[in-house]
């Protein structure tokens, strides 16, 4: 039983990261109806920026805030320069654009910071949390930050004018434009926020998986799995999906014989396919209605 509780808690902790990634994926999906395959690389790049800032002597939280601001600006810049012109292009062109971005960021990060594995500090420390043996302080911190982020986003979308405008622009762009919302900037804002959220995910997971240009590969797939499980149209769903995927991953690794560590990615794949086949809209997503 202790093993079980242990694994569930550890699953919730890694799930927090998947939840952040999924949240970032959903933010962009909401804004432009495309999956951002470069999301993981963008998060990795942000994490490297924060690492570099810390190398230059900026304290952790200073680097954290600065990185968020830079990522936000970077996300908007990417949208304005690269993806705004592609807004009306076929899906295929957009996918190609994301893949190109993926390749560029991965390669540039490798060029600047090379492929050696780097230690990344944790602001919470790695001692056991509140004296319990179950989770470490860092894991508890990860969960805390994710929940805080979700609450902030909820407040933003539910109670601020600009959050309302973003929701309007995402669900009914034409009508939103008619009532005077600048939908084009709402999309850019979505990109900025998604990039910043991705940066948080990257900075939280870097102490666990260590910092290197390919660190987000697996995390991104899990983020996708979480987003699909929760429903690509629902931020809350994405977060719940993230936690569920984290728990599921850990339990499957512990209890299904032969899974262990080496089958982790195939589990995510299986999860994605099963969810898409059984419930394509995900647990919390809106079903897609097609008009003929």
């Amino acid at each position: 039983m202790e093993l079980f509780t242990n694994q569930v808690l550890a699953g919730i902790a890694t799930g927090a990261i998947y939840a952040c990634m999924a949240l970032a994926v959903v933010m962009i999906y909401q804004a432009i109806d495309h999956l951002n395959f470069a999301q993981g690389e963008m998060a990795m790049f942000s994490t490297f920026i924060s690492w570099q800032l810390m190398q230059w002597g900026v304290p952790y939280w200073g680097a954290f805030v600065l990185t968020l601001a830079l990522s936000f600006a970077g996300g908007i810049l990417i949208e304005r320069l690269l993806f705004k012109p592609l807004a009306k292009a076929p899906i295929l062109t957009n996918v190609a654009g994301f893949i190109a971005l993926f390749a560029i960021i991965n390669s540039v990060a490798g060029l600047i910071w090379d492929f050696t594995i780097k230690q990344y500090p944790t602001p919470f420390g790695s001692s056991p949390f509140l004296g319990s043996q179950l989770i470490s302080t860092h894991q508890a911190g990860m969960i805390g930050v994710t929940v805080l982020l979700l609450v902030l986003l909820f407040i933003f979308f539910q109670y601020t004018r600009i959050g309302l405008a973003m929701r309007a622009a995402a669900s009914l762009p034409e009508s939103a434009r008619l009532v005077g919302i600048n939908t084009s900037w709402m999309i850019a804002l979505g990109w900025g926020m998604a990039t910043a959220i991705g940066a948080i995910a990257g900075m939280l997971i870097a102490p666990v998986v260590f910092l290197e240009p390919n660190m987000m590969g697996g995390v991104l797939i899990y983020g996708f799995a979480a987003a699909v499980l929760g429903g690509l149209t629902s931020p809350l769903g994405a977060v719940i999906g993230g936690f569920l995927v984290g728990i599921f991953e850990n339990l499957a690794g512990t209890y299904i014989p032969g899974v262990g560590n080496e089958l982790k990615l195939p589990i995510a794949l299986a999860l994605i396919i099963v969810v898409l086949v059984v419930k394509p809209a995900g647990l919390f997503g809106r079903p897609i209605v097609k008009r003929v």
Partner: protein
Amino acid sequence: MSAVEDVVTEAPAVEAVPKRAMTLGLGTSLVVLAALCLAPLFVKNFIIFQMTMLLIYGLAVLALNILTGGSGQFSLGQSAFYAVGAYTSAILMEHANMNYALTLPIAGLVCFAFGFLFGQPALRLSGVYLALATFALATAMPQLLKLGFFEHWTGGVQGLVVTKPDAPFGLPMSQDMWLYYFTLAITVGIYIASVNLLRSRSGRAFMAIRDNEIAASAMGVDVALYKTLAFGVSAGITGVAGGLGAIAVQFVAPDGYTITLAISLFLGMVVGGVGWLPGSIVGSAFIIFVPNMAEGISKGLSGAVFGVLLFLVIFLVPHGARQVAIVAQGLIAKLKR
């Protein structure tokens, strides 16, 4: 009835290409074929090897092109099918001592089955969802190949070494050159078959699905069957390419078939022009030679150069090499007048 309905204006994933625009004319094809036949006589073995790889990747890009350009579904997971084909060939050659040429149709069939089965769940997916599922497949494949369970057959992380075949009937050719002509024969055969496939009833069904799924099903096209069939055919051809690749490289290992390969093949298709079959070879040349040139400029830069070029392609020539070819054709026609 809620006042606000979610309306998904389903844009086709790929822009429509009329079937006549999918191939080269007979004359041009023969010139290209003659060039491909004669070229190896004048170059070194290493370049012959690279040309072989050009044909092999060309085949894999062609397969993706049939899927995407033909039926409008895309796949970021072609590396998985390629890997299955390569491993099928390698295992049959090494463990069953089978003739290399015989392993290829088997690799093709195995991959056809694999693609057809993967196409079943993929049926319910379209657009980004399909890209996502296949992306996950490509990421998961190297790990599946490393599994301890299959290790006896696959050689685990170390992979398998494949022996390169000699030229048969005592032909006075180097191994590389024989393999090149062998690959060329298979490529030409599959190319002709693909052109005919796209011109057939099934090909038109694919294109109808690509352009408008609902209209296609209203016309009596069995959408589910043809979509999975497209996946199967595409995977089958990729499998043959994978088998050839294993023989040419003389080695299979899980890390040779990562998402990078899948991305390369995808790029090859976009650069060559989606739905334009001869573009596959152009795209394949792009994915083989551009990284080499980029490495020449600066080590580790190939990804960035790749990405930047890809952005240039989608911004400047969205239809890839096909667009260039059409412009060139126009110029030639003008000169003739």
